[in-house]
């Protein structure tokens, strides 16, 4: 049954991908990409990767699609006819595809429990991590503790992205744009619903942030969901109102603070006599130390991701308002 669902989803993905290749209407292409992302999130769930599905849905289908639509609002909606032939790309793709298929012939069969990936490194994560780290969610244990350095790197990648977007676009000041038409002020239903929904979204974000130890969730997903709440606010009430609530400069500060918070946990471990990011040293009882460490670094991740996603939205959004695109 699982295989049947898998097959159907993969087939839908393949159709979506082919459609994207041939469509010229970029708005439809971006929408199809959103669909592609959601379908892959479903496939991830089917393959038992619930944390990944959550992240793909919020980050891939959520943020990426929003940014692409924002870019489309500032550029063209239709792709023009291409002048160069597609023989060379087709050739390159066929050769690469053939190499990959050749590579799959020797791969361990799909789903078998004795595959090499399930030996050697993984068993410790599955069997020992509830005792060594003390969390039911093994993905969080590996992400935040065993491979915490990778996650620090990931947070810095997010920070690097905001540096890139800020240096390219900046966030333009919003003095002239307090017209009644900005946002959706005229749409009263949206305003009422937004006022109810936004606090719930923020609450949900906090839930995801702190519940990541016990179920799917964690800093990344929480940061994105919290940013989504504020993005909704700025869409309905206007960018200048959003700037008044959470200003761009403040967000830059938050983004830096998140990374520094994460790194300072590691430095504190060194101060206590351990290696960088050794949470066992953070408290007298190693398990308690692990819990402290994980909660604080996830908070750092959540703060940075929230600040970065919202900053990037502000950067794109303020370009649109300046060129009077509604």
């Amino acid at each position, binding site marked *: 049954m699982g295989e049947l669902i898998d097959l159907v989803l993969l087939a839908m993905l393949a159709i979506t991908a082919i459609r994207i290749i041939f469509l010229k209407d970029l708005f439809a292409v971006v929408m199809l990409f959103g669909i592609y992302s959601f379908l892959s999130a479903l496939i991830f769930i089917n393959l038992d990767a619930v944390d990944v599905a959550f992240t793909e849905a919020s980050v891939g289908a959520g943020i990426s699609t929003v940014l692409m639509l924002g870019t489309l609002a500032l550029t063209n909606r239709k792709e023009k006819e291409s002048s160069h032939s597609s023989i060379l790309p087709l050739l390159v793709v066929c050769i690469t595809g053939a190499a990959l298929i050749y590579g799959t012939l020797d791969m361990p069969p799909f789903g078998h429990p004795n595959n090499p990936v399930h030996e050697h490194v993984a068993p410790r994560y599955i069997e020992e991590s509830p005792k060594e780290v003390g969390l039911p969610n093994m993905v969080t244990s590996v992400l935040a503790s065993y491979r915490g350095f990778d996650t620090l790197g990931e947070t810095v990648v997010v920070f690097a992205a905001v540096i890139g977007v800020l240096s390219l676009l900046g966030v333009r000041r919003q003095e002239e744009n307090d017209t009644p038409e900005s946002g959706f002020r005229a749409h009263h239903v949206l305003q009422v619903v937004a006022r109810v929904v936004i606090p719930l979204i923020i609450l949900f974000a906090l839930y995801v942030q702190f519940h990541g130890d016990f179920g799917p969730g964690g800093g990344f997903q929480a940061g994105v969901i919290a940013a989504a709440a504020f993005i909704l606010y700025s869409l309905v009430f206007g960018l200048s109102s959003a700037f008044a609530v959470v200003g761009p400069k403040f967000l830059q500060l938050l983004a830096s603070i998140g990374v520094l918070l994460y*790194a300072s946990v590691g430095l504190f471990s060194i101060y206590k006599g351990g290696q960088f990011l050794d949470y066992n040293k953070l408290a007298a009882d190693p398990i308690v130390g692990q819990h402290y460490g994980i909660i604080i670094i996830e908070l750092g991740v959540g703060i940075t991701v929230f600040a970065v996603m919202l900053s990037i939205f502000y950067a794109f959004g303020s370009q649109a308002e300046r060129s009077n695109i509604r």
Partner: protein
Amino acid sequence: MFEQHLIALPILLPLIAAPITLILGHSRLSWMFATAISALACYFSWHLLTATLTESVLSYAVGGWSPPWGIELRVDVANAFVLLAVSALSTLVLIYSKDSIEKEIESSKHALYYTAHLLCLAGLSGILLTGDAFNLFVFLEISSLATYTLVSLASDRRCLTAAFRYLIMGTIGATFILIGVGMLYMKTGTLNMLDLAIRIDVYESSRTINTGLAFIMVGVSIKLALFPLHMWLPAAYTHAPSAVTAFLASTATKVAFYVMIRFIFTIFGLNYVFEEMGMDLILMVLAIVAIFKCSYMATVQSNVKTVLAYSSVAQIGYMILGISLVSVTGLMAGLIHIFNHALMKGALFMAVGAVFYRVGSVEISAFKGLGKQMPFTMAAFTIAGLSIIGVPLTVGFISKWYLVTAALEQQHWILAALVLVGSLLAVVYMGRVIEAAYFQKPPASQDSNQVKEAPWLMLLPMWILVLANIYFGIDTSLTTEAASSASEWLFQTSSIAAANSAEVSQ
């Protein structure tokens, strides 16, 4: 208290400094802070090099979890040597940046420039010091994103398209590396480099591992700008701000070259890559084409930065030629050229940046008569140019010497001759610029009479590099000792992996 954490410091310092630099926000303050951090990182990497020259391998388990369950930082002479080059160049470029970016980047973005530079340094240091294949991918992306940002900071609009093309090609390269690492992981179940080396030996003749090798090699070649995947480089180097080009040309591709060496020698093992998969022949052919095609392309450009960009791709060809010879001397030639080329190209791009600062253009025609008007800058350019050609008493000669020796050791007479012909082409492309500077009259307009020498803050790092060119060309003890012991160690451990696996599979 610091000694046991020495390995982590070159990564942690710029990593933590970057957000602080963003908060500082002020141009002058960010410059001083960034330069201080980079100098500190350079100091620590020097200690790391001396430590590895005595102790061979240093290891650091991040998070207190022993590898392969945790991430390991692993240093031997090879990566300590490259790290020294990277952090030293970073510090010198930062000193140079203060004046250089005044004319090339808008002042509101200066703090962002320094933040991005620190992020790039952190990323490159992470790539060099990590012992985990996926961690390498993460730091590769940190440095790549920072690089795309740095390239796009210039005022010329062509930097935007150059940065975009670099982004697309770079991300394809990184994704290929990700696919390759995934295939290795699928077959071995581990991500730690040493662990992979032991386990791959057991599964050697697997098609999946072959494909993994192919994808990793292609992905790294894109980052390395190995012909024919070098298309992103000329535009990116030409249109990026001068300080950025000086930094990237001396560091980014060299770090990718290190990654290739690490994968070939430590993870996959010599026998597998060269004898079974025949990579040495492929690399040799590509290297030779790179050297000739790109040296030729350098001779017909009118923009001096583009000349130097094509020259860089040709120099990478020399490095690849070194490893394709599969000998200790060949690898040593490649490693020593990492260091030497950083010195040469760093100085050259700094000199060109100084010309842009004063004259506003870097076409060859803009160099006319600068020999008299900017004597120090052009002297620096000339000496570094002689180094590229390979004149004795410069580091360029040392690199070419070892390369030719390695070729002759294996009776590749033709290869040795080709290397020398490549030097002749270098004479042509460097000579055109030097001729314009010294033997032609400056254009007879009013502005040209006011061209002065470059500010001392730009001349200082430039001349430190030029003097280093000469110093290390005469007293080669440090560089040859480091490069040869790195080379020997890499060859040695390539067979140890095989010996270890014999124990594992029994």
